[in-house]
Structure formats: C-alpha cells, structure tokens
C-alpha cells in the first residue's frame, strides 16, 4: 500500500506539470490578453511598459519557468486585476466552495441513495416512476435557469431566503445567516447530483439483487431487511463511491454557474472572473488547486475500494 501511494504521488507530480503547462499555453494563446493592458485610454507605449513591469514581455517558456519556480518556492504570484496574492484569494474562496459543495454532497447522498434503493426494491411501482421522472428532470434542467427560478420564487415573490451572497453584510452575521444563504445554492448544486446518484444507485441495486449470492442468502432464509443492508448494500456502494469520486472535483471546481448565479464567493466564480479578465496568475493558481483536488479525490476513491471490496489489493 505504501509503495503504491508513493508511486501514485510521483505520477501526480508529473501530471501537475503537464496540466499546468497545457493551461499556461492555452491561456497565453487565447486572444485578448489581460484586461489590465486594455484600458481604452492607454497608449501603446504604456501598454509595453506595463507588460515589462508584469513580466509579460518574456517568451512564454520563460514566463512558465518563472511561474513554476515561484510555485515550487510556495508563491503563486499576485492577481493582475486585484493585486492580491493568489494564495490569499484562494484562501478566501476555497473554504466557501468546500462549504457549499460539502452541503450539496451531503444533501445529494442523503436524498439519492435512499431514493435509489427504494425505487430499485419497488421496481415499476408508482414511487419508482416518480423517482425516475424527477431524476431525468434534475439532470436535464439548466442550472442558470433553475437557479434564477428559485431566486424569483423564494427570495423575491416569497421573501423567505436571501437571493444570493454568503452573508448579510449589513447586519449581524452568524452561522444561521450563512446557513440561510446556503439553502438555495446547495439545492441547485445538489439537484443534478441527486438525479445522477439516484439513477446509479437504482441500477446498481437491481444488478446486485440479481447476483447468485443474494439468491443463496435468500434461500438460506435471510430476512429481507438483513438481506438488503448486510448483503447487498456494501456491494451496491462500489459504483456509487466511484460516481461520487467523479462528482467531487466537479463540486470543487465546476460549481462555476451555480456560484455565479447565487453570487457565492467560491472557486468557481473566482475562476470565471479570472478567465474573463485573463488574470494569468489567478487562472494558474485556481487550475493548480483544482487539479490537486481531482487527483486526491481519485486517490481517496481508490483507497476506499480496498475497504469496500477485500478482493482489491494494490
């Protein structure tokens, strides 16, 4: 296991270099360039001067090497548009994203796994049809529209919840206030995952229930409840853990639309703004952090397999 982990971490480092190199190339090749160089009042001379001050006059490979060297030294540079150190920006935004995606993850597993199991054990019943319909509805709904509808309904027509942001900036703000702000974006972010997870749970459950060992257990006279929870569930969990592992990085980096619609100050909205502004240091910093999360979550999934299925060995 230890040897396996060391090998995986070595692969991770190589992967990081490839990912950042590709991002750097794509980013600098994209037309336009940083907003800070595009003020309509600036002359060509001032633009050139600004480029020199920011180090943008160097060849691409050199800019990348300088960036990489800084990162190795623990410095992610400073944002072009905000002037803030990128590490500080990420430090502000990452916890917010983790809170939102954690809440969404919790919500989706709590809702999806029971729903999937119920609809698998009562196949073709009215309940199964409702779950199936809701799942497809959840998967196909565009997030920006769904989010706006919830805002219109629950923040404007019925002023129960705040329309966006993370806390009330004009009054006392405590955990309850943050929780109220969390409700709508967490529901929106969880919906698509609930739908997907419920579908996976259902089909995985159905296939496990058709396995020989379930039939054997049943013929031995094991009760329905024990059959479900002791014999089937753990096996059902393997594909679910895989899917959850795949959803995890999406929750950290890919909540861009939900975060933008609800003005949640997280990594997704940070990445979107940085991309629009061509804020190179921020784009690189966010990419690096998200890639690390992706690789780590894959690693965690692989380790979980060992626990869930004793036949798997590394």
């Amino acid at each position, binding site marked *: 296991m230890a040897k396996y982990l060391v090998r995986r971490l070595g692969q991770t480092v190589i992967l990081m270099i490839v990912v950042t190199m590709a991002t750097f190339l794509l980013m600098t090749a994209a037309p336009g360039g940083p907003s800070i160089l595009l*003020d*309509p009042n600036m*002359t060509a001379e001032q633009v050139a001067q600004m480029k020199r001050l920011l180090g943008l006059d160097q060849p691409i490979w050199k800019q990348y090497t300088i960036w990489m060297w800084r990162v190795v030294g623990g410095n992610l540079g400073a944002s072009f548009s905000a*002037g803030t150190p990128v590490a500080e920006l990420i430090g502000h935004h990452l916890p917010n994203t983790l809170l939102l995606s954690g809440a969404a993850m919790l919500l989706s597993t709590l809702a999806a796994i029971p729903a999937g199991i119920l609809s698998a054990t009562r196949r073709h019943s009215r309940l199964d049809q409702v779950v199936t319909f809701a799942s497809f509805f959840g998967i196909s709904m565009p997030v920006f529209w769904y989010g706006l509808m919830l805002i219109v309904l629950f923040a404007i027509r019925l002023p129960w919840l705040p*329309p966006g*942001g993370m806390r009330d900036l*004009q009054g006392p703000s405590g955990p309850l206030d943050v929780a109220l702000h969390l409700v709508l974006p967490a529901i929106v972010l969880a919906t698509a995952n609930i739908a997907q997870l419920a579908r996976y749970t259902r089909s995985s459950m159905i296939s496990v229930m058709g396995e020989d060992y379930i039939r054997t257990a049943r013929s031995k006279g094991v009760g329905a409840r024990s059959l479900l929870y002791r014999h089937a569930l753990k096996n059902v969990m393997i594909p679910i853990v895989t899917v959850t592992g795949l959803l995890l990085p999406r929750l950290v980096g890919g909540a861009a639309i939900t975060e*933008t619609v609800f*003005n949640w100050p997280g990594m997704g909205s940070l990445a979107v703004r940085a991309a629009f502004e061509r804020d190179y240091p921020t784009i690189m910093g966010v990419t690096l952090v998200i890639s690390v999360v992706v690789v780590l979550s894959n690693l965690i999934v692989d380790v979980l397999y060992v626990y869930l299925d004793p036949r798997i060995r590394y």
Partner: protein
Amino acid sequence: MRSRLALARIGLVLALVIALGSMPTHAQQQPRSGGTLSLPLIDNARVWPVVGGVPNLMVYKAAFNMLIRYNDQDLLPVGDLAERWTIGPDGKVYTFTLRRNVRWHDGRPFTADDVVFTVNRIWTNPDVPFYLRGNIDVIERAEKVDEATVRLHLKVPSFTLPWMLGYLLPILPEHILKDWSPAQLINPTPAMVRSVVGTGPFKLAELVPGSHARVVRNDDYYAGRPFLDAILYRVIPDLDQQLAQLQAGQLDFMPLDPRQLSAVQNNPNIRINEARQVNYTYIGFHNRLDPFKDRRVRQALTHAIDREALMRNVIGGKGMLSNHPISPWLEWAYNEKVKGLEYSIVKAMALLDEAGWKVNPQTNIRENAGKPLKIILETDKGDPAREQTAVIAQQYWKAVGADVEIRMSLFNALLARVRAGVKSDVKAHILWYVTPPHPDITAYYGCGQSTNTFHYCNPLTDRILAQARRTPDQKQQVALYRQVQERISADAPVVFLYHPFELQALNRNVQGWGRFGFRDTLNVLNRVWKSQ
C-alpha cells in the same frame, strides 16, 4: 338646508387641508444622517487611482478628491481640492490656489507638496505607465509656489485642461507614497493600498476579495460631514443577481440593462432615473483600409441605417440620437444645427454608385474593379444591445448591396485587436466611448493619436482642434468646436448611433442623487442621504 350645505362645504375644505398637510413633499424633506448605501461592483475593486477599471473608480471616488470636479448642473469644471485657479495669458501656466482646511484621513494636512508629487511623480513620470496620461500630456511639470499654491507648466498652450483634470485624476498623499518604486505605484498589493489615505468624504475600512469593500464616513471632510454612515460595495458580477438583490432591498442602486427595465418598472420601492451621461455607441470603421478609405462609402453606410428605429428597437429609445462624438448634455458646446446624415436608401445608393461600387445583377452585391463590397462587422459577445445592432446593421447594409458578415468575439479579444494600431485587422466594429465632458476630441479623432482606433485623419479638422485648445476666449473656442462637429458629422469616420441614457434603478429612499451618470454622482457622495 342651506346651512347644512355650508357645513358640508367647510367639512370638505377641512378634509382637503388636512390631506394636503399630511402629504409628504420631497422639497420639504430635511437631509437625514445615518444609514448605509449599498452599491454593486461587477468585480473586485483595486481602490487605486493610478490604474483604470469601473469597479476601481467606483470605490476610490469615495475616498479621494481631484483638483477639479464637474458641477452637477451642467458638468462645467469647479474647484475641488483647488479653491480657484487662474490661467496665464499664454495658456501655458495654470496657478491653483488650494483649499487650506483639507486633511488626509490620517490627520496630516493636505498641501501643495501632495499636488506636486502626484503630478511630477505619477502623472508625468515616464517610468510610471499611468493610464490617463493621454488626456493630460500637455502638462510638463508642477511647481510649488507656497504651501497652498501650485503652478502647472504646460508644454503647449491649452485652455481645455480644467476639463481633463476633472476626469478621474485624484490627488494622492506624498507623505505615504514618496518612497514607492514605479512598479509599486502601478501595481501595489491590497495591503499597501490599505495603508494609503485619501481626503475624500469616506475612508476605506474593509476590502474583502470576492465579497465587498466598505468605506466609512470621514467626519473631518472639508465640505462638511457626509450624511451616510458608510457605503457598502458588494461584488456581484452577474447582472441578474444584482437585480434580485435590488428587488430584495439588499442593493440601493444599479445601472440597468434595458431588458431588465420591465422587471422593476412597477416596483413601488424602486425609482428609475434616465440619467444623462457622456457616452456614445458607434459602428467604427478602419478609415485607412478599403472600402472605408473613401468618405462616400462611409457616408453611404450611415445614410443606409435608420438610426432612430435602431435606437428604438435596441435600447427601447432610452437615449438621444448621435450625429458626432459631442454629447448633447454639453449644452454650451453642442451644435444642434448639425442634423447628421439622415436615413435615405436613395442617397446611400447614389453615393456608392459614385464611389464606383456598382451592383452586380447576378449576385445583387456591389462590386468595384471586380471586388465585392464585403464588410466584416465585429462586436463583443454577450451584450444584447450590440449583438442586435450588428444584425440590424447587416440588414440595412444588405439592402444597399453590401455583403455583411457578423463576427462576435470576447470583449478582451476584440478590444486587443481594435487597439492594435494602424495594422489592426478590424475593419468595422461596434463599441462605445465614455469621454470627458468636453468637445476636445483630439485624442479620439486627431491624426495619429494613440486612442484614435478609427485611424481617421483630416488635417483641417486637426488644425481647428489644435486652434480651439489655444483659444482663451470661450465664445471663439465654442465656435471652433461647433465647426468640428459639422466636419466630423459630414466625414462620417464612424456611424454615430446614439448617446444612451444610463438607466439607474434606485431604492426609493435614496436622496440627493445627481442627475448625471453614476460616475459623476460618485464625486459628490457626501450629499447623498437615505430617508426612512
């Protein structure tokens, strides 16, 4: 019977008097102190006047003052940190008398040294790529006469400088910045920015990336204590989210996109202002490239568009038609006699024929020397008004025999290409300009000027513009600018479309808000107050 009627009459009158007396009238309301004004930012604010950007200026305007600002009646320059100024007879020396009762937020007095520092070490320092230098490149240097007097020496005579000084040029504190390097002056970290003090009505209190900036009342403000306790700037990049926050009462102001108007028009808590702003939208041509080199082609393409209909459809008619770059809000300089090039397909076709572009009956496209009249019209993705304008112009131009292809790209990408100088490959593009409230348009239409993205050059117009700058007499100056407006309108370097109103949605309890665009109201935030 009679007395009953009389009684009834008296009763009616009494009721009316009581009703009138209890009706609130705005004129009677006394400004009230207290409260927080909440404004939106589309991105983090740098709060640093040496660089540009709208979120940036929205915050720094609360914390800093300029030498001169524009008054809120007609946008003419009035003293801000300068109490008054005189111009030497040759137009090359300006003497400013500074206010004596101004203090920096840290308590240090504001003096001539601060002005001299700002001018010599930032505005004119070749090592600092200060983004607004183009507007004030006539300034050679500043000289301290005494603690409260500063002289500005110009390279060439200019009588239009006060208007430029009122356009985003705050004075910065020498005692804090004197040891900063050029790199630090142009790109300070937020920690450095937080150490800087201003003289403005509000002091920077909080700067949280991705969330908000907060400024709080400066009790020692030179023009008296501001009414508001604080201004909270909330970072909200998404316009629909801004609208939701406005409806929920979490924002007190936002500039609306015309398509958002219907959502809040009938909301009793929200007031809509059609604010005047110095701003125009255009279809710009690369005047050095074919077919736009030929003035007749440019004129024809303007004649071909029903600009009034376009404005009605694209921004709901919320603007004024534009015939040249001078804003109709500069009433003292605006030449209302210039009617522009009217919508006339006949004239458009005649001009194109005259310029040698004849219709090929097989394709219905005009050709000149075997080359078809092909126009690639570019604009930025995501702005509904400009996207629609592109499609509408395409239809109008097709009707007179041009083959028009629309290209959309991201704003930054388009801007970088438009601003690539004479070698720019953008031949026709739709964008807009916000300019100082003065008819001196040399920077945008003067031959070879760095912000002349149209590469338009008319030596005679150039001479008139240069002469106007050197003319001390206001009347003569205006007469020259009126000529400029005629000439530019006739030359049609771009299709002038419209001067849009800024559609301001304001919380009903915001009072003392100016009549001009928010950029100008932000200069007098000390007068804004909130009623309950």
